[in-house]
């Protein structure tokens, strides 16, 4: 079954590669003129065109692009001259740590909140839940982030300045997983753990607030549907206590749609990540892409879009597999 699901990823990946290729090549504007800069002579443009392989046919260019990708070559950044692939892989852990902490935080808050709202339907908590859910998706992430910075950095002074993963005085832990929190714990460096945690909290909360809404909504809706079903009535009639009915019987069945929603939440999160990284000067791949975008440096942007898409496809694959773990019926059907 896993193999079968893996095969369905292939056409998606092909589509992703084609789109990222098309983004530069087919659209209006001559990349060679673009790469040569404003002070280019026709001669230098022709030279760049040749060195970029733009004088060849489109299918030929595409083959070269795919070949480069297969060798892990994402091209070089125009402004720094460094290869995009190394830059992205060195910055990826920062983004991953931020996104995953945000998601984890959101799940920890949203799932109990959704369950509570469903169990006490129509109550004050339920209405509060609806307001939070709608307000959460309405808040622009960059705005939430700035508000949090104002309150917790400027007003209360509880959190450090939003200047990246560590403040100027702390040293980075040795690079094992690339996740500062984990690395500092492994090496027993609690000073650095505290420093990186205090930098991480605000951006992670910002992302969590954003992804809270869809998870709460879906948990509530699917808990409501499950609680109305017959096996719950039977369980209740058999005299099981409310806790067992809700957590063991209802929740496990209600989890499936919630896990499906996580796919959509990830799409939002990976996008919101870019904005949050800009607000908190987080040295992840999002801020790398934004910097490149503003300098019209296309190779990093292309590499970034491709990386994000591949990550997202992989995450969706993971979610599908999780589905089979939660619900054995899915395995049987396949």
């Amino acid at each position, binding site marked *: 079954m896993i193999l079968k699901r893996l095969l369905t990823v292939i056409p998606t990946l092909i589509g992703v590669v084609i789109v990222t290729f098309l983004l530069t090549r087919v659209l209006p504007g001559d990349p060679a003129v673009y790469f040569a800069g404003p002070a280019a002579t026709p001669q230098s443009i022709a030279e760049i065109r040749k060195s970029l392989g733009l004088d060849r046919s489109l299918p030929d260019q595409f083959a070269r692009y795919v070949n480069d990708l297969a060798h892990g070559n994402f091209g070089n950044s125009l402004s720094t001259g460094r290869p995009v692939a190394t830059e992205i892989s060195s910055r990826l852990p920062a983004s991953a740590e931020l996104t995953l902490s945000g998601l984890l935080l959101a799940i920890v808050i949203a799932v109990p909140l959704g369950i509570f709202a469903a169990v006490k339907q129509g109550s004050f908590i339920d209405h509060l839940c609806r307001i939070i859910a*709608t307000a959460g998706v309405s*808040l*622009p992430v960059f*705005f939430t982030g700035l508000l949090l910075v104002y309150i917790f950095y400027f007003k209360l002074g509880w959190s450090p300045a939003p200047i990246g993963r560590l403040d100027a005085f702390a040293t980075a832990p040795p690079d094992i997983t690339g996740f500062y929190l984990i690395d500092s714990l492994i090496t027993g460096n609690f000073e650095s753990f505290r420093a990186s945690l205090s930098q991480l909290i605000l951006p992670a909360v910002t992302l969590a607030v954003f992804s809270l809404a869809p998870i709460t909504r879906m948990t509530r809706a699917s808990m409501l549907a499950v609680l109305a079903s017959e096996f719950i009535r039977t369980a209740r009639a058999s005299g099981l206590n409310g806790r067992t009915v809700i957590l063991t019987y209802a929740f496990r069945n209600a989890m499936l749609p919630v896990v499906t929603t996580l796919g959509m939440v990830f799409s939002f*999160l990976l996008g919101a990540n*870019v904005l949050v990284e800009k607000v908190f000067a987080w040295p992840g791949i999002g801020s790398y892409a934004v910097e490149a975008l503003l300098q019209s440096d296309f190779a990093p942007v292309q590499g970034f879009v491709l990386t994000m898409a591949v990550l*997202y496809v992989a995450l969706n694959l993971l979610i599908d597999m999780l589905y089979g773990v939660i619900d054995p019926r899915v395995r049987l059907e396949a």
Partner: protein
Amino acid sequence: MTEASLTAPPMTEAQPKPPTNSIFRHAVYVVADNPVTGLSFGLFVLIALCALFGPYIVPYDPLASDTSATLQSPSLHHWFGTDLLGRDIFSRVLAATRLDFTIAIASVALVLVMGGLAGIAAGFFGGWTDRIVGRVSDTIMAFPLFVLAMGIVAALGNTVTNIVIATAIINFPLYVRVARAEANVRREAGFVQAARLSGNGDIRILLVHILPNIMPIMMVQISLTMGYAILNAAGLSFIGLGVKPPTPEWGIMVAEGATNIISGEWWVAFFPGGALMIAVFCFNLLGDGLRDLVDPQRRT
């Protein structure tokens, strides 16, 4: 023909009244049950009025800088304070409504035409049309949507028009899905078969008979995605894409105020961000309310 024209007038006379009345009554019922929807509708009217008349009623020129009054906190003269160049933030927020609103409406209208037509064609014809449209929207969905929008704007060029196009493209799969499902259900419906029997071609059936029938559901989809469209456009301009600096626009104004937040001048970013938040909040609530009205079963 004569029979039809004989029976038709009483029908058209009798019919409009009960439905409008019952829809109206249903609307009143829904609003009474959920006053938030009523409030959001009021807000929507207010935002639309700001978009229409905002630039004419601003107390100051949104572009005029005043070096003698930079970074002033909110006061009676400057309700929302002034920014780094001494521009009145209240005027800028008000004037920006039109641009943000226009971007959202233009992108939603564009995707309604693209996604709606592609979707009903896919649902109606099935086969290859369905497969191609499905493949295209699957490929779009394979990207994190905001990231794809960034890529599109970067490739097409850094203009407001391209923000509209990018926002439309990332919403494309949502519209296709709804339109496809609705068209598919109606493909073999009685009125479609009747239309086919009377000699209508496929395209004509699609546009004249099916399209009007799925419009209510598409309207709900519009109001549900409108908030996301505004949020997306503001996000793109926050990272420096699309709108160029002196132009008042909520996203770029928050970006301009971001540096002032750390030194305590909260109002520069707060008011445009707040306006953006209220607008998105209003569209989302309105979308939910409209969906409850048209399609009560999908309520969550």
